[in-house]
């Protein structure tokens, strides 16, 4: 399949003119990486091009030798690769996340990566781009996904903490992005007690703090006692682990856009669903696509059918782009990626 300057190969989206892949699923010669979630950023490429933050987060996760060679690119900077002008622009998803813009002979293609439109104190805000071909994610590509106001969800968590002061509130969060965002949102709501975290969140949280994001007093939960009434952040998979049982009558919350659908929260045994997402909701996806002014829309991972239907009606050339392997958040790197 042809997608602007790109073709779809088994390893992922490929640009023949520049001889590079975007977020390839298996090791390749040259890879451009949108952001550091495990389903987009894999180890073992010969050359990697990404923002400095994405490269640093990949090194935190995979070790310093995750690629043969790396090159960092700043937001807004343009590189020429085989006659293709490649530039990175904020996607608002997690720290370092980028949309990739490709331009050649006046034709412009934008690959959104994962993105959200809502302001997030832990990363640069999404920049709208204009292009001919837009490749959008669609994690929440159904009109039932209209995320709640984030501040109200944090209030819900704090209200529950006041109501059940004897119970530890365990909050399931993805290790990269969601964990740090929830801590920052708690601070913005005036919460000044220590926030406890599972060991699996530690390295990435430390990197965010080094990168200058203020998160206040963050402590490791292990060995801190059973923490009645405290907030403990952990990977979603740890909510049902033996690990969770050492806390005082744990009450399980889960911060994710998926909890908008009751069955999802219930299926996971969640008692307090928090609709906090790092992906655009239906309104955000529609508004973004509209703003790109694109003629061709390709919709990747998640739920592409509704967006394709909607934008065909508005006269766009819209197609689903089935790339296996994205968005399967818990497949191989359980705690990390991003709903």
């Amino acid at each position, binding site marked *: 399949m042809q997608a602007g300057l790109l073709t779809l190969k088994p390893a992922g989206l490929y640009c023949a003119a520049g001889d590079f892949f975007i977020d390839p699923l298996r090791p390749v010669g040259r890879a451009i990486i949108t952001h550091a979630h495990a389903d987009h950023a894999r180890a073992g490429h010969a050359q990697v091009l990404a923002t400095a933050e994405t490269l640093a987060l990949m090194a935190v996760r995979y070790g310093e030798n995750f690629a043969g060679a790396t090159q960092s690119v700043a937001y807004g900077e343009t590189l020429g690769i085989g006659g293709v002008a490649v530039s990175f622009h904020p996607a608002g998803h997690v720290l370092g996340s980028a949309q990739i813009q490709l331009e050649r002979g006046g034709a412009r293609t934008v690959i959104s990566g994962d993105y959200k439109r809502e302001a997030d104190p832990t990363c640069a805000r999404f920049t709208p781009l204009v292009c001919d071909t837009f490749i959008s994610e669609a994690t929440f590509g159904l009109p039932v996904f209209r995320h709640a106001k984030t501040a109200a969800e944090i209030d819900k968590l704090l209200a529950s903490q006041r109501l059940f002061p004897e119970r530890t509130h365990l909050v399931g969060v993805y290790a990269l992005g969601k964990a740090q965002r929830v801590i920052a949102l708690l601070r913005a709501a005036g919460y000044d007690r220590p926030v406890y975290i599972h060991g699996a969140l530690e390295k990435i949280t430390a990197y965010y703090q080094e990168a200058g994001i203020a998160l206040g007093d963050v402590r490791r939960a292990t060995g801190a006692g059973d923490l009645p009434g405290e907030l403990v952040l952990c990977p979603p998979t740890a909510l049902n682990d033996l690990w969770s049982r050492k806390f005082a009558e744990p009450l399980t919350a889960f911060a994710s856009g998926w909890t908008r659908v009751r*069955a999802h929260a219930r*299926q996971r045994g969640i008692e307090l669903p928090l609709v906090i997402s790092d992906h655009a909701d239906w309104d955000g996806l529609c508004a973004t696509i509209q703003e790109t002014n694109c003629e061709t829309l390709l919709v990747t991972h998640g*739920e592409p059918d509704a967006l394709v239907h909607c934008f065909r009606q508005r006269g766009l050339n819209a197609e689903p782009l089935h790339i296996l392997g994205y968005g399967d958040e818990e497949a191989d790197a359980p705690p990390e990626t991003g709903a």
Partner: protein
Amino acid sequence: MNRFAALLDRLAYEPSRLGKLRLMTDYFRQVGDPDRGFGLAALTGALSFRLAKPALIRMLIYERVDPVLFDLSYDFVGDLSETVALLWPGKADETAAPPPGLAEVIETLESASKLDLPRVLARLLDALDETGRWALLKLITGALRVGVSARLAKQAVAELGGYSANDIEDLWHGLAPPYLDLFAWLEGREARPDPADPARFCPAMLAHAVTEKELAALTPADFAAEWKWDGIRVQAAVGRGPRGKIIRLYSRTGEEISAAFPDLVDGLGRAASESFSLDGELLIVRDGRVQAFGVLQQRLNRKQVTAALLSDFPAHIRAYDLLALDGEDLRALPFAERRQKLEAFVAAARVERLDLSPEIAFASWDFLAAARHDPASAGADWAAIEGVMLKRRDSIYVPGRPKGLWYKWKRDPFAVDAVLMYAQRGHGKRSSFYSDFTFGVWRAATGGDELVPVGKAYFGFTDAELRLLDRYVRNHTTNRFGPVREVAYGKDEGLVLEIAFEGLNRSSRHKSGVAMRFPRINRIRWDKPAREADRLETLERLIIA
């Protein structure tokens, strides 16, 4: 409405029975009359307004949302009420008039004519927020599904006054929403309401499952044995009210089902006694032979009770127990005595649709085990037998599931190894997961062996296994047909599932010619190659008649 909607929402997430009780009791304590009474009526299924059919709700949402977007959303969410609640265009002005209370909502619905209902419902939905819309739609489609039985709700309300659910049950059929007299009694403000219902429901006595090993510790002579009939457990209550004879048929949980069985109600009305309460099994009997559950199910599935249905599926009660007779409560008598009275009652009643569940004479567990294994050779009317029941001869009739008195000893399930072929997204708790699995077995075909679908199962696995199965489906999809995915299967690839089931019927509706009863996934055989799964011939040997 908001407080009730919030209660339903919390109940839906609350896993523990105790937690649900506490949430409900707290609601009854905090909310005033008459709202809480309507809340209790909603939780016990006692509301009487005109229910909206799903088709009406679809019509309303199709007028407001692109049908294609609605269908895609519904497929994902798996629950009509929730999908509509999420998609319904919200209020533009959040500071508008406060949302209506539960009592007001219910009065509005009760007074709405059929013609008005769509407009009335739409106006209510406009006035509520997402949780409120969800709760209203659950109410009006008659499917709350928040994991609360009528019994649990009654227990929660009983706890207001330190009473038990049985105390409420004794009064229940004489009460009506919004239960002002009940709450007044529970809160010590008024005397106990008069339980004057002449045909009230007595909470049913249930049995524990038992294994052969556990039986070894029990003395055969202490027990009476009967067949375990595979129909629906019912209670028939007949009495004389101020306006004549009252005849009611209740389900095991106390829901009245008389309307669906006019043939039985008619038969019971002609019994010699004017007042009795009978515990038994509802079965279909044709030409003196009890029919398999599958036949009964065909009657249960019909919405309209037509003359043809009544003559093709004659309903029948096989009596287990006599709970009351001519105004006397028999429940405190030992089973052996009640049984004698029951035998005399059935003989005197001379009702064609009523007979006695026969006792199985046995002297040892081994003898009974042989009869359970092969009811036909033990002389039984075997098509609807799913095991044997054991009742202590000295057991009084205790509501609920008391320990050590009654046992059910079900027949062992059948098992077969089949190959996963298709998966579909589930509904309710499992929506958006691929949780409905169609599986097949091998049969000979012109081009060599092929897999033919033999059934569909959607439970038997744990939540953790469900996630593995869901991932397996996503990673092995070869074809998509709307909500259905076809997965890779063949001699050299495919996932083998061990399927347990209760029986097998011949079916012209299925390509394979067989239909399984109560199939579930017993085990996932990650280790077993698909080529080694079972063949259709193996199944055909198990077919009943």
